Structures are given as C-alpha cells and as structure tokens.
C-alpha cells in the first residue's frame, strides 16, 4: 500500500513544483496575450485588470493600421533568404557528406566560424557598400544578409541529415548513371524532406526575429516587424493593449514554427550536434 502511495505522492508534489516553475516562465507570454485582449484603459489600469470581457478590437486596429507592410517585409526577407539557404546549402552539404571533398573538416570549420563572427566584424563595410549600391532601406539587403547569417547553420544541419541516408542508395543511383542533378532532386530531396523542413524553420526563426541589421539598414520602405515595435519604446499615452496585440502578431509565426518543430529545434540550435 505504502509502496504505491509514496511514488504517487512524490509525483504529485513534483508535478506541482514543475507546473509552478514553468508557469512563471510562461507568464509574460500569457500576460501579453491577456493584455492584447483588453481595451486600452483596462490594459493600463492600476491595480491591473484581471477579470475582463475579452475583445479583439485592438487586433483589428493593429491589423488595419500601418502594421501589415512591416509584417509583409518580414515575410519576404525570411522566406526568400531561407529559400536561398536551401538552394546554396543543400549542394554544399552534399559535397561535405555524401561524396566528401578533401579537407571537409576545414570547410565545416570555416562555415561555422562565420556564424559566430560578430556583426561588429563586417557591419561598417556592409553598411557603406549598401549605401553606395543604393541598397539601404531595400529589402534585398536584408535578404542577402539573412542568407549569410543562416547559410553556415543550414550547411551543418543539412549535412547532419544527409549523413543519415544509407550510402547504398547513392551507389545504386550512380551505377544506373544518374546525374548530380538527378541525384539531388530525385534521391536527396525526398529523403531529407523532414531535414529540409527543420532547416527552413530554424532559418525562419533567426531571420524573422533579427533586429540589428533591420534597424540599421532599413527605415521605412523595407522595415520589418521588429522595427514596427520600436515605435512603442517611449511610454506615453494609452498603448499597452496595442503594443501587446502587435507583439502577439509579430511573435506568432516563430512561436508556431518553433512549437511545430520542437523536436528539431534543439538539433538546429546546436548545429546538428545534439539530436
């Protein structure tokens, strides 16, 4: 009797502790959602409003205002740069995994070291170059930069997925005289579809949330979602509900992508080292 009661009681106890701790961390997100469903006076009341009738009017206001162009810019920059990462990264990963080139380790090391090069290293020349090429406040500049940021990660991740494909499949194809293009499109892509999806999601997360280049390289035309939020820095007027709604919509794509790709998230964040 006791033997079954003991573990159950400790399980309940630790469950309570676990839920409390996790809810502390999750609370700011929950609070953001709650604030976004309030009216402005409710959102900025003292003491804070806990019970209220939720309303979507703030979301309506945000989505019908000047927010959508920022969101669209973010989508364009993230999606196109992610596509470029896959197009450039998959052949490179192939060359480092399936039919390895000489000095594979050096190439891998080179790629990963550029991922950790601080933006301080190349900021000034890139800014001057963008200025001279009329690429400031142009979404193309962000696309190219985000491709650079994510490409090393993409190569490492895709390679880690390619290494899982049995070698026999490629040998069989080569015996049949398959071309490189055929090999990539008809064998590699279908087999590592989950890997491509995971890599895309990780790239989307990093480029969607990117702020440094966005705020310094764009101003109005090409400004992305985080830049819209800059308008909320100073704290004048009733704007908490609007801020919370904008923050919720801005965070939604990455939150959903991250939640869907939970299993792959850790792999992506550690360059494929931890599965």
């Amino acid at each position, binding site marked *: 009797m006791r033997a079954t009661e003991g573990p159950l009681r400790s399980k309940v106890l630790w469950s309570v502790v676990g839920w409390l701790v996790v809810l502390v961390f999750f609370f700011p997100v929950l609070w953001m959602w709650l604030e976004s469903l309030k009216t402005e006076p409710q959102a900025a009341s003292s003491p804070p409003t806990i019970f209220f009738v939720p309303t979507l009017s703030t979301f309506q206001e945000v989505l019908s205002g000047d927010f959508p162009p920022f969101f669209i810019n973010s989508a364009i920059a993230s999606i196109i740069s992610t596509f470029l990462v896959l197009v450039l990264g998959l*052949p490179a990963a192939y060359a480092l995994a399936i039919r390895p080139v000489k000095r594979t380790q050096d190439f891998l090391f080179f790629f990963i070291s550029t991922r950790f090069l*601080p933006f301080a290293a190349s900021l000034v020349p890139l800014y001057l170059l963008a200025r001279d090429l009329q690429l400031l406040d142009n979404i193309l500049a962000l696309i190219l930069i985000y491709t650079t940021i994510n490409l090393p990660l993409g190569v490492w991740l895709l390679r880690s997925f390619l290494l899982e494909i049995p070698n026999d499949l490629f040998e069989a194809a080569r015996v049949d005289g398959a071309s490189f293009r055929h090999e990539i499109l008809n064998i590699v892509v279908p087999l590592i579809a989950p890997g491509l999806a995971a890599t895309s999601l990780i790239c989307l997360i990093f480029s969607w949330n990117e702020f440094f280049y966005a705020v310094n390289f764009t101003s109005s035309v090409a400004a992305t979602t985080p830049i819209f939020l800059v308008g909320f820095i100073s704290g004048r007027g009733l704007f908490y509900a609007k801020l919370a709604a904008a923050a919720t919509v801005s965070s939604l794509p990455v939150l959903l992508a991250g939640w869907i790709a939970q299993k792959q998230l850790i792999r992506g964040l550690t360059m494929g*080292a931890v599965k």
Partner: protein
Amino acid sequence: MSILRSVVGIGGARDSAASVSRRDAWARRLPLLPAFIYVFLVTQIPFVLTIYYSFFSWNLLKPGSFRFSGLDNYLLLVTDESVRIAIWNTVLLTVSVIAISVILGMAVAMLLNSEIFGKGILRTLMIAPFLIMPTAGALIWKHTLLNPLYGLLPYVLGPLGLGRVDWVGQFPMVTVVIVEVWRWTPFMMLIILAGLQSQNPEVLEAARVDGANAFQSFRRITLPLARPFIELGALLGSLFVVQTYDSIYMLTYGGPGEDTTNIPFLLYKVAFQGYSIGQASAIGVVAVIFTIIIATFALRTLFTIFQVEARR
C-alpha cells in the same frame, strides 16, 4: 541510445577522399563552391575592410575627412573610458546571464526529466520565451510587467515593499539580465534536457538501491553526464549573449548614461550616431578578438563531444 552523432570526423568520410582523381575532385568540389564563395564574399572581405578602416580616421558626415591615422583608433580604445565601461558591461551581462540561465535551465530540465504530469505541455510552454521576438519580449517586460505605475510586478511585489520600484530606471542592468535570463533559460533547458534524456534511468535506480541519496546521485551521476551539454549550452549561449542588442535597445537604450552600454551597443552608437567609421571599425576588430577567444573554447567543446561520442 546515443543522441549525439559524429558530425565531424569519423563517420563523415564515406569514400577515401585521397584516392579520387583530379577531375573527380573538382566534380566533388563544385556543389560546395557557390555556398563557399557566397559566405566568403559577404563575411571575409568586409572583415578585411574593417581591419583596413580601423587604421583610418573617417567621419561619414565630413566629406574628405578620410586620412590614415595609424594606431590612433586603438589608442583611443585604450584611453576612452566608455570602451572600458562597455567591455565591463559585456562581461558582466554575459557571465551573469549564462550562469543564472544554466542553473535555472538545469533545474527545469531535471524537473521535466522526472516523473511528472504533463511533461510534453510543460516543455512546450517552457520554450515560448525563447521563441518570442526579443524586441517584443523586452517591451512586454518593460511596459506591462515592470512599469512602476501600471505594471503587474510592482503591484504583486507591493506587499514586499517593492511596489514603487522603477526597475528600468533604478536597476537597468538587473532588468536587462532578468529579461535575458528569461529568454535564455529555455535554451539551456532544451540542451541539458537532451543530455539528461540520454542517461540510462537504470543507473540512477541502481544507485538508489545501493543507498545513494538524491544529492549523491546528482553529484556523481547526473551532473557528470550532463556536463558536456551544460558546457555546450553555456558556450553557444555566450556567443549569442555577447551580441545582445535587441533588449538593450528596447529596455534602456544603453542608459542611463552608459550603465547598460555593451560592446555591440557602443559600436552602434559610434557608427550610427557618431559616424566615426575608423573608431567603429577598431571596436569591431576588438569584438572579433573577444569572440574568437570564446568561440575557440566553444568549438573545442563541440568537437570533444563528437569525439567522446565517436569512441562509444
């Protein structure tokens, strides 16, 4: 059972690369070249230019001010107090954020690795702070949680005598650390949890049967096993936290004064408010040296993990 894979080295090379002919070698290299050239052009050439500019005095707003100035920019770095403050702030921010989030991440990972109800849901909720757009997260903290008048936290902490604390104004660095710890704890948790899950539960059970108490099995079994994962998380985390910019921009804008100005923020101020290209480049070079030091340790750890795994 093994959750680490040998990405580098053993297991990587499938053919003997030495035996291939020259033509074949180029055929193999070809798919690699576009990505390599692209990354090389966009990262290495600008870096060389950064080093080059760091030896010049150049104010963007003053046409014709471009002139060679030798080591002046570097001498200014040594004598300028704001550089020293920024380096100190960077170290303080990085070390405290990483230390706290590793400890909290370890604790949460152990909770989520134990027998509790709703593990999957908890894990899902727990990673949310890491996924929320950093600029959005920082503003939510600043305005709706920490605001001394309308924020929730001063209201909740009121009975403790912390009701009218202006967190951002009075404790700017603490505020930045809190927000960054909130963001990075889930990251540490994910990596450490993966480590804990690779552990064989029977070992812990055997230790319990042998009479080891909870603390002993934590110190002798759990911790050594989780160690490489903790190191990996801490080092990868530092490489990101050293570059903290979003939350400082949103929470304190480097202030008050220079209290929360770290190296990236100083670089931003020098380059985009002072337009001192040479000075900003010198800061960039110093930042790279700092990063290389951390990254060397990070990569060594990464490779050690792979090698330990390859030996199994």
